[in-house]
């Protein structure tokens, strides 16, 4: 039996004959070719957006297929002026919510992971159960709740529900992470006379920096993209966020002015672009870690 196995292995290894190598090379090139093809098709809308953002209406309607000539930077002036307010709002609300989610999730995850207390498991299950509740069920009642609390059409109508929503995943992530920290670290800290709070802030938090960053980025992206909730709760244009703002400013430019509109789309994308340039690693890590646990 063993001999057969080794024979097969040898056969496999000796497929490094020139022909097999060439075959493998061809396969690899084919794979990369297909991937590049898919990639180009995926990038088409983005390229379209960029090219159109520099054209004026004449160029779009007349010379659709040619590159912008002359390049119309004016479009970006209007794009920036229109979007900057929305972007400022969105980043402000999201930042507040992200800070709140990170702080609260780490506190809660820490408590669940490292403390024992009565009803701990039922409470945790209670938090997890919220994952089962879809947005459609809570959309309208949340709207009424926000109205009755008197915070409709204020930033709090966005910040508080966002924070609450981010808590569910945040607590899950933080608890899982804190549970992996070895008890010895905390014991040695206690021996050195650290208080409970110091244990948390000096030991647990610094170690959890990567996961907190992941959480922060995921939450920021989620709140930046939220559309229906701000649509429902914010009616003043000067408080509105980017996702809804993109659909509302068209009245300023009229329906057919595509150049400035595309420029506005590009401007709206820039914050996420910057975020991903710095935080791509964490975001990817967060998702892939979740993949393994699935």
């Amino acid at each position, binding site marked *: 039996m063993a001999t057969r196995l080794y024979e097969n292995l040898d056969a496999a290894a000796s497929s490094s004959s020139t022909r097999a190598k060439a075959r493998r090379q061809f396969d*690899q090139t084919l794979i*990369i070719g297909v991937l590049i093809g898919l990639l180009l098709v995926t990038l088409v809308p983005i390229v379209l957006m960029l090219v159109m953002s520099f054209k004026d209406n004449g160029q779009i309607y007349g010379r659709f297929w040619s590159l912008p000539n002359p390049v119309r930077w004016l479009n970006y002036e209007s794009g920036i002026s229109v979007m900057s307010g929305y972007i400022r709002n969105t980043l402000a609300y999201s930042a507040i919510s992200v800070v709140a989610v990170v702080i609260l999730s780490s506190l809660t995850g820490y408590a669940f992971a490292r403390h024992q207390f009565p009803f701990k498991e039922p409470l945790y299950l209670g938090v997890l159960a919220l994952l089962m509740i*879809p947005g459609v069920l809570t959309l309208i009642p949340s709207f009424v709740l926000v109205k009755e609390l008197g915070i409709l059409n204020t930033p709090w109508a966005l910040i508080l529900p966002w924070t609450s929503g981010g808590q569910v995943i945040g607590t899950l992530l933080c608890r899982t992470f804190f549970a992996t920290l070895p008890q010895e670290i905390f014991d040695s800290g206690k021996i050195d006379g650290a208080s409970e709070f110091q244990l948390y802030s000096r030991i647990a938090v610094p170690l959890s920096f990567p996961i907190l960053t992941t959480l922060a980025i995921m939450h920021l992206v989620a709140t930046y993209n939220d559309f*229906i909730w701000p649509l429902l709760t914010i009616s003043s244009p000067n408080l509105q966020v980017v996702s809804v703002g993109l659909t509302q400013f068209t009245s300023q430019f009229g329906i057919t002015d595509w150049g400035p509109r595309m420029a506005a789309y590009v401007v709206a994308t820039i914050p996420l672009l910057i975020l991903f340039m710095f935080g791509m690693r964490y975001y990817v890590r967060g998702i*892939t870690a979740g993949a393994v646990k699935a």
Partner: protein
Amino acid sequence: MRYPLRIILVVLVISSIFAMSSASLFAQEGSLEVVPGGAVYGTALSADGALWVVGTRDAIVNAYDDAGNVLWTFEPDSTVWSVATSADGSRTAVASEDRHVYLLDAQGLPLWSYRSSRIFVDVAMSADGSRVIASDENRDLILLDGVTGTVLWQKRLLDTADTVDIYGDESMRILVGSRDAYLTAYTESGDIDWQVRYAADVIDVAMTPDGTRGIIATLDGLITLINGADGATIWQDTPPQAPNCTARDRNFCLRVDISGDGQQLLIGTLDSNIYILDALNGDIVQQQVLERSVTSVSIAVDGSVLLYGDRNGNVRILQMEASAANFAAQQDSQRLELMTIMGTVVVALGVFTLWTRRTTRGRQFWQVLSRPSKQRLQVMWRSRVAYFLILPTLILLLVFNYYPAASGIYHAFTKWIPGIETEWVGLDNFRDIANSPYFFVGIRNAVILAFAAFIKLAVPLLVAELIFHIRNGIVSYTMRTLFIIPLVLPSVVTILLWVNIYDPNIGLLNQTLNALGLTDLARSWLGDRNTALPAIITIGFPWVSPFALLIFYGGLVAIPDELLDAAKVDGATPWMRFWRIDIPLIMGQIRLLTILAFIGSLQEFQSIFLTTGGGPGNATYTPALELYYQATRFNNFGLSSAMGAVLFFAILGGTLLNLRALRSRAEYIPG
């Protein structure tokens, strides 16, 4: 032993639902009559119906208390065309033929007056008395400060506004109905918020104070119920004996008012008819024929007092005692609710006691639970730190997650107008859903979308496999990074970009087809019934979702090398390896993504709302869209909640099904 208990519980629940839905209210009537002197041209009521103000052709304004006693009298120099009061009745505005608008205090003494060069036709006051809007025969529209009488702004309209109203608390709106058949809503600063055109001159308008509902009367004898937010028509009808309105009678031909809760309409006509209508569907609740033409009508905010004045100078007041009846009915239904809840709790306790006594598991549970409670409390106190740590989170979750969920399920059984009423209607909402044509189209579309979302997962899987096969680590990393680029685009931008691609004129799709000579295929992709939904599904082509890609890739990477090597040794082709090893081992990821795709597609809102809004016709309607529209356009919050509840159970059921169907024996759980 269990069955009888379950039957009792079910019977209890069903009977309570029936009981509540048949709670009815009775109204007692009392009527009074007062004679101020002169044909009654204008009437107004304070919000609770305790103060009545009447203005007559003979230049008399009288204020009465709810017993019909005259509180004060004010006499301008000429005919009174219109009167209005603040909600508390402390301020009264009078529009008179002597070219003045007067503002009177609670004793009927003028605080200020405003003079114009022409006769004032109509006047209205905001509920808090802070704003007064007046229109005159010279096509002027004037907004005055209610306290000081200073002019805030003045507009010259295209045609005379015969009727005005003010509504809204935080965002005030001024409604103007004019002779050119336009109904215009202005903001407090004077900008036009919305405008609607009718078939004939607008002769009377009335809005609920919160602006959700309004009633419009036009010269062709039609009455229209509108949504105050955008002027959209809810229903339109004519009174059974449609009055023949001529331009000369425009001010008295058809008079309307709406109660503050949007429930009742009071209509008075020139041919001496009085109608009380149910505002929700336009049904006539009561009808009376009088001996004289009705010239003005008013109804109190809660519908408890109805007042109408006629050409002979008599004012009839009906005190419905409806507020008392409403209140009693509400109390009754509340009591029923309470009783049902208590009954359920008692039954539950009974079941619980039986369970812990009679069954083994129950007895064990009880033993665990009844350990010395003092010990338990001590343990809790010692771990108070932990409780403090999780407290903020728990509070947030309770308020913003749990409460709305519970509220959603509860209100699915009610007719819900937030802040105004919540009335238990049992299964009515669900019946409406089942009868609604939109809903079934929505379900069909949602199923199509869910199925498509599942199929679309094949692409990221393919890409993940291809990347997995790349030998060069650098190339593999680069490819992964490049395919994540689409994450950078906000989801709204993606959808709007595709709207542009589908644009009939300058959209990439049609431009490409034209360039290739396939002009016949070019069409309005989002405007054509047959292509709208497929177009929406195709958004994101080629559907390499970065999220799915990363998850699949993570799963593939987790497959232990030994399995792959063994497969190669055994001479497995890539195809066989894919089906026999990869797929079963990443079942966990496939399951996760399928469930997420399913949940996401059932709740799909953004892509439909931003592309077609449900059209053309109802080709792209989805349940989530219908839910949104019902709440925002039609104010049917109860129906909306019912839809949310139905979707919730559908999602729950679908998720469980998915979990069952995609189970795999070879699933690899690392760790």
